[in-house]
């Protein structure tokens, strides 16, 4: 049981990077971005290819840059070509499938067994296998939270938040909306790719279909986190996305452990979690309205 909990905690930290990326587009920029499915696999593939070649650290960096580039493409489609935001994401994601296959060398999966990874490097510092997995994922995710929390207080960060919060205001101010959107999408997908990159080295293999449904997983993390933390400042939002990701992995581990549902039902369960969370405010409003009407009829 404790092995299961520790494993979920580690996975939760790795997928938290995905949650951070989704938080940036979904909550800060206020645009649901579907590029994530593709950029997650891109990060995974790039990291795996570099790791096999013996450069695990460079693999992480290259994955972040590649993810950022993918996000920038979606941004360019949205702003310069005025393609609908949802469709822009789908187009990039679809195109990335080919690129991801190319990166993996026309194979659908790649094993990293025997290669040096971030985690084996940490073991060389004297950490046990499990501790190295926990510490490395904690370090990467912790650094990203600090970095993003600082970034969204800089001038550029304020511009991104304002763009998502009141587009009317931004249009009448001297902020370059197009540039801001492209930057935010690049940062978000850089984060998502980082998540895939760390995961590849964590689990020791890369698979072309790893990214399917990642947008929904990211959304689930963000929303579960908000159940605990509410929606307050950006820094709290970032921390809540990380917490949400860890809780999400615990829920799934428990459900699998108790054979509550089979492993292949994961995606459906994730989708249902997100639907319920998004529906709660609307259903609450409708129930109130219904109660008001009933009240009014009684007094009529």
């Amino acid at each position, binding site marked *: 049981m404790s092995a299961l909990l520790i494993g979920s905690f580690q996975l939760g930290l790795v997928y938290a990077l995905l949650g951070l990326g989704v938080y940036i587009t979904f909550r800060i920029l206020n645009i649901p971005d579907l590029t994530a499915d593709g950029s997650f696999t891109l990060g995974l593939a790039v990291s795996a290819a570099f790791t096999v070649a013996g450069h695990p650290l460079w693999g992480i960096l290259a994955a972040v840059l590649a993810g950022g580039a993918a996000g920038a493409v979606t941004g360019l489609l949205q702003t310069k070509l005025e393609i609908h935001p949802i469709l822009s994401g789908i187009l990039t994601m679809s195109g990335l499938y080919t690129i991801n296959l190319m990166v993996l060398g026309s194979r659908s999966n790649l094993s990293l067994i025997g290669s040096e990874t971030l985690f084996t490097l940490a073991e060389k510092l004297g950490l046990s296998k499990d501790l190295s997995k926990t510490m490395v994922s904690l370090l990467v995710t912790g650094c990203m939270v600090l970095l993003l929390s600082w970034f969204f*207080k800089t*001038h*550029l960060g*304020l511009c991104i*938040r*304002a763009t998502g919060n009141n587009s*009317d205001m931004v249009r*009448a101010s*001297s*902020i370059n909306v197009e540039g801001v959107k492209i930057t935010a999408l690049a940062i978000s997908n850089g984060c998502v790719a980082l998540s895939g990159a760390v995961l590849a080295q964590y689990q020791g293999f890369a698979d072309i279909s790893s990214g399917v449904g990642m947008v929904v997983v990211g959304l689930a993390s963000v929303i579960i986190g908000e159940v605990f933390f509410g929606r307050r400042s950006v820094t709290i939002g970032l921390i809540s996305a990380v917490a949400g990701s860890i809780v999400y992995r615990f829920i799934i581990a428990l459900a699998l452990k108790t054979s509550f549902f089979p492993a292949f039902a994961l995606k459906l369960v994730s989708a249902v979690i997100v639907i319920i969370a998004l529906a709660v405010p609307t259903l609450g409003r409708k129930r109130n309205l219904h109660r008001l009407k009933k009240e009014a009829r009684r007094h009529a």
Partner: protein
Amino acid sequence: MLEIQNACKTFLPGTVNEHVALDRLDLTLEEGEFVTIIGSNGAGKSTLFNAIGGTFLLDAGRITLGGQDITFLAEHKRAAIIGRLFQDPMKGTAPDMTIEENLALASGRSRGLFRKGVSKADQDRFAEALAPFGMGLEDRLKTKVGLLSGGQRQALTLLMSTISHPKLLLLDEHTAALDPAAAEKVMHITRHIVTRDRLTTMMITHNIQSALKTGTRTIMLEGGRIILDIQGKERDEMTVAGLMELYRRKGGGELANDRMLLTKD
């Protein structure tokens, strides 16, 4: 300061809904002038502001501001030298961001993209600028703007529009959506800032009394043209009744707008 030559704008040309919003309009503003603009609905007041602000480009004509030709300048680049306020107090501020963050965005990016958004010096500067409003906003810099009243938000927007000393300030009925007390307060703050910073200002209003009392010059628009332009002694001696009489003679028809007649100052 501002020079508009032969400005033309037609909406939906070639359709049954064709509407000539600006018709060969010429206007020159001296530095520090405060012009109030009146006219009936559809006279072209807001179209004129949108053309100056860059919401759309003119069909023909030229606009220069402070010696710079801005006819084809992108909207966000014009925004750096033109401050704008709209009727809706929700439009000018980001509700989920704090007062100081909103003000920091408005004060421009001359300090670099990756510098801290709000520095200690900024906070002092913002508090000092907010204090004369008498709204207590200077003590609430970390409050989210969404929690403020309409009047407070519009006063904040006014400060945001003027904090980087724009070459031109455009006020589009910026007190019309506020309750009378808040409207008077925001108007008072407007006069204070415009006079103190000697800002070249254009203000659209539906209140003729206020149009004659505020600023240094009054123009009346009709059918996309300026049909009346008064200042100095002529303006000082003008009355609301006199202005409506002039409108009848020059524009044809009544300047019959319930809002104009019923609004008390």
